[in-house]
């Protein structure tokens, strides 16, 4: 719709779909304003509209299609009509059974006795790698894998790129090396006490729960719970984000996984501690982290890849269901460890 007409400068208001965060609005504004023929662009997050002023030719529909091309790669669609919220209930026909099969396979895998593959108490680099491999498909999959899946699927949904995920993995590997070395050198374990463990477990479970429900994209109310940054901060990040992605956050989250309440990681830390040297401790933790890499890389890069496929709706819903199930499992486990409830599962 044309609002004002001033020689060949025109102002249009279009509807945007796919905007969730303050940073999304900033990103769209920047991409549009970069075009030579567009004078200004202003995105309003509350009513999901963008007001653009510039020299346009053609019908509003054609202009909307032209603008969509610019922002499509980030997952936004600009249209003349307000698009109704597509809950995509139909996707559940596929997503629910797929999620179920994966959850059932995960639960059965826990009873397969993979840990009996590890024999002896001397940890060679080969053993550390094997422990990493096993950790990434057993109990730690619920917490580390669940978190990686929820974060990378959410990131892919919001237009994140491979760089974000690569930075996460680099942060994780680097963090394990340096912190593993520190544990070996100081002879002091960095793992958290019981209370901190439980609190962290509950926080991770709740973050996963919110991210999981968001991935389902069925309810509107969780958007309010989403961790949104102040607009000024978002603007700052988005400036960098457009070309460099978020640099610091994924690296820090990667390093932070060292402290996640995963039994295998903590046992390896205990072993690194007993080595009493920086290099041995660092190397053993790095090799362990490398062992967990194949599974975590599959989850994260897989999510990113699928996010651009036509059946992404099914994928996000499948991931959402799995993440919610794992979040509830982690929550029940954390509460059981605190002695608040009876153990819910016993693998």
């Amino acid at each position: 719709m044309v609002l004002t007409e001033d020689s060949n400068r025109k102002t249009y208001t279009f509807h945007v779909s796919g905007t969730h965060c303050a940073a999304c609005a900033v990103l769209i504004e920047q991409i549009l304003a970069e075009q030579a023929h567009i004078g200004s662009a202003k995105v309003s997050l509350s009513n999901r509209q963008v007001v653009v002023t510039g020299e346009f030719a053609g019908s509003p529909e054609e202009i909307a299609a032209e603008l969509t091309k610019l922002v499509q790669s980030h997952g936004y669609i600009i249209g003349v009509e307000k698009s109704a919220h597509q809950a995509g209930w139909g996707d559940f026909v596929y997503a629910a059974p797929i999620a179920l099969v994966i959850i059932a396979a995960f639960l059965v895998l826990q009873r397969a006795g993979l840990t009996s593959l590890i024999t002896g108490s001397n940890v060679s680099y080969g053993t550390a790698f094997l422990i990493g491999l096993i950790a990434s498909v057993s109990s730690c999959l619920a917490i580390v894998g669940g978190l990686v899946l929820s974060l990378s699927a959410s990131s892919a949904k919001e237009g994140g790129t491979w760089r974000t995920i690569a930075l996460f993995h680099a942060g994780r590997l680097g963090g394990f090396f340096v912190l593993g070395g520190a544990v070996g050198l100081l002879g002091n374990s960095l793992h958290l006490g019981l209370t901190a463990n439980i609190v962290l477990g509950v926080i991770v479970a709740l973050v996963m729960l919110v991210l999981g429900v968001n991935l389902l994209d069925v309810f509107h109310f969780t958007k309010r719970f989403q961790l949104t940054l102040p607009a000024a901060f978002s603007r700052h990040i988005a400036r960098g984000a457009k070309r460099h992605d978020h640099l610091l956050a994924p690296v820090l989250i990667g390093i932070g996984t060292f402290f996640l309440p995963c039994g295998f990681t903590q046992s390896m830390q205990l072993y690194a501690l007993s080595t009493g040297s920086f290099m041995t401790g660092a190397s053993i933790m790095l090799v362990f982290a490398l062992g967990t890499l194949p599974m975590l890389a599959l989850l994260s890069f897989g999510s990113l890849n699928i996010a651009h496929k036509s059946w992404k709706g099914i994928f996000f819903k499948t991931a959402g269901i799995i993440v919610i199930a794992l979040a509830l499992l982690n929550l029940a486990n954390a509460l059981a460890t605190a002695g608040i409830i009876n153990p819910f599962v016993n693998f």
Partner: protein
Amino acid sequence: MDTKTIISLTVSVVLIGWAFWFVSAKPSADDGARASTASIIDGTQFIDIAAKGGYTPRVVVAKAGVPTILRVATNGTFDCSASLVIPKLSYQKFLNPSGIEDIAISAEEAQGTLQGLCSMGMYGFKIRFE
């Protein structure tokens, strides 16, 4: 939402429920495994539990009101079961990958049901003092 979706969702919820039931701590199954590994030597009760990929046995029936030593044996244990938590005793320890850990339970504490867990909560064992 059409009928197909509702059926699919219902079936999934039921099956996920079943999967959780499959791995859940079942009280009836616990009763079946009453093989007690508690033995009393010179007035002290000894309970042996192996920790690797879970705890065995999962249920131990022991005598109440007897000073007890819980011996947890690890053998190449790097999984969560090495990180032992007993909430009632406020006990938490990372056990060595291989070795035997003695945990003393006083006569006053040896009452009711004692629940042990790994720190992530997915493995557990129970000692029932009767």
